[in-house]
């Protein structure tokens, strides 16, 4: 019992530092790459670290119409909840620290908390721009939950069909990669469709273009973060970085949980750890490249009712088609 408590405490500290440092690092890489895609030079990779440092030296203004205790508490609560998700995901190919105490549904709900904290913070700012941005964020959340729920339940359902127990637990999902569970071409196509839908859901979760109507700088002057400054804004900035790492890790864990050491057959404790960690970081980088950077520089921003339409009609139907393919997987086989 006390072993779990000790593991939890140490794990939290280590993973919090890991999440923040790598979150900011990936943010920097993302800005550099998108700048090169737009034929600019872009900031150096350690720019986000400098941004956070600078935000900490700015004044922390609380507007007149805000509710102070909620205004100050929301960014902190968002960051804390986001860090707690890290303990349930297999980072770097290792077992999650709290692997027997939380599953995929918990992660799904905890992913709501950072956006919810931004929404509550926006509402608590007392400014009309912030209110409009906050309700847009809430509507975006409603929109992307539908395809996300379909993806998660489909994967769990398929694993359950094959007789596994505890199918929502991440340790079971990483032990049975989804491409191996598909017994025919329909299954593979179904899972590929779900992967594409998840890649399009990710910018919605992270409030990046084309789904960043809540933070539209050009329309509503910064949206729900308009009244935030100083250390509160730094908390939100860090939350965004950590959440990027988490979403990318989720895609890696659900669809590409392969460990390099298993493939290459390498043994030896520290070599496997180091190799797995590096391979994992590489996979996360590739996912961020495709789902955040490429999409961000390629398309324009959607209107809020277009966002709801996009997620609820085409993407939901697409993921339902994927679910149907997975359900019919056993009936069509390659001759």
């Amino acid at each position, binding site marked *: 019992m006390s072993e779990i408590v000790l593991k939890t405490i140490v794990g*939290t500290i280590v993973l919090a530092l890991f999440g923040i440092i790598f979150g900011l690092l990936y943010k920097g890489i993302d800005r550099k790459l998108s700048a090169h895609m737009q034929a600019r030079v872009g900031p150096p990779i350690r720019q986000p670290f400098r941004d956070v440092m600078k935000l900490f030296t700015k004044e922390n203004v609380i507007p007149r119409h805000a509710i102070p205790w909620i205004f100050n508490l929301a960014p902190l609560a968002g960051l804390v909840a986001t860090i707690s998700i890290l303990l349930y995901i297999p980072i770097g190919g290792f077992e999650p620290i709290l692997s027997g*105490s939380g599953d995929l549904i918990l992660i799904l709900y905890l992913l709501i908390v950072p956006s919810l904290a931004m929404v509550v913070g926006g509402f608590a700012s*007392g400014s009309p721009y912030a*209110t409009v941005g906050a309700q847009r964020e809430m509507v975006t959340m409603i929109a992307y939950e539908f395809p996300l729920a379909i993806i998660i339940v489909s994967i769990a359902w398929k694993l*359950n069909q094959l007789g596994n127990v*505890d199918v*929502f637990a991440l340790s079971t999902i990483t032990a049975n990669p989804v491409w191996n569970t598909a017994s025919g071409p329909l299954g593979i196509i179904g899972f590929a469709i779900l992967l594409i839908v998840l890649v399009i859901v990710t910018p919605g979760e992270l409030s990046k273009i084309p789904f960043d109507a809540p933070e539209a700088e050009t329309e509503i002057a910064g949206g729900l973060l308009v009244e935030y400054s*100083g250390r509160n804004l730094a908390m939100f900035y860090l939350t965004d970085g950590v959440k990027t790492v988490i979403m990318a890790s989720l895609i890696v864990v659900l669809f590409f949980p392969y460990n390099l050491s298993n493939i290459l057959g390498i043994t030896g404790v520290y070599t496997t750890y180091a190799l797995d960690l590096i391979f994992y970081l590489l996979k996360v980088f590739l996912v961020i490249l495709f789902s955040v950077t490429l999409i961000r520089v390629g398309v324009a921003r959607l209107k809020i*009712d277009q966002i709801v339409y996009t997620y609820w009609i085409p993407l939901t139907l697409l993921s339902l088609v994927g679910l149907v393919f997975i359900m019919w997987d056993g009936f069509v086989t390659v001759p």
Partner: protein
Amino acid sequence: MFSIDTGSGFWNPILWVLVIIIAFLMMYILRSLGRKDYRKTTEQIKPFLSGNPELEKDKMHVRGSNLYWGFRESLKGFYNVLLKLHSGNTSDYILWFVVIMAIFFIIIGVI
């Protein structure tokens, strides 16, 4: 003992609360590295309205029914039908009761 196991997943709230407490302490310490002061009596605390004048408070507050416009707009057809069905007529309430009873009769009788 403190966790529930559903056969397809599990949840242990006590460990999660422990994580939250530790992360909260860490982030609180991190946050207190920043500045906490601001000039309270100057123009800083007025809301940012891109230079537009601030009207009286009743007109500045965004009311509840304006929220979620995007959601309501994109599901307009659905809501038209739904609101028409909720007519408020007591005889409509009993009508729905009879309809469900009839459907249930058919299901039990035929299947």
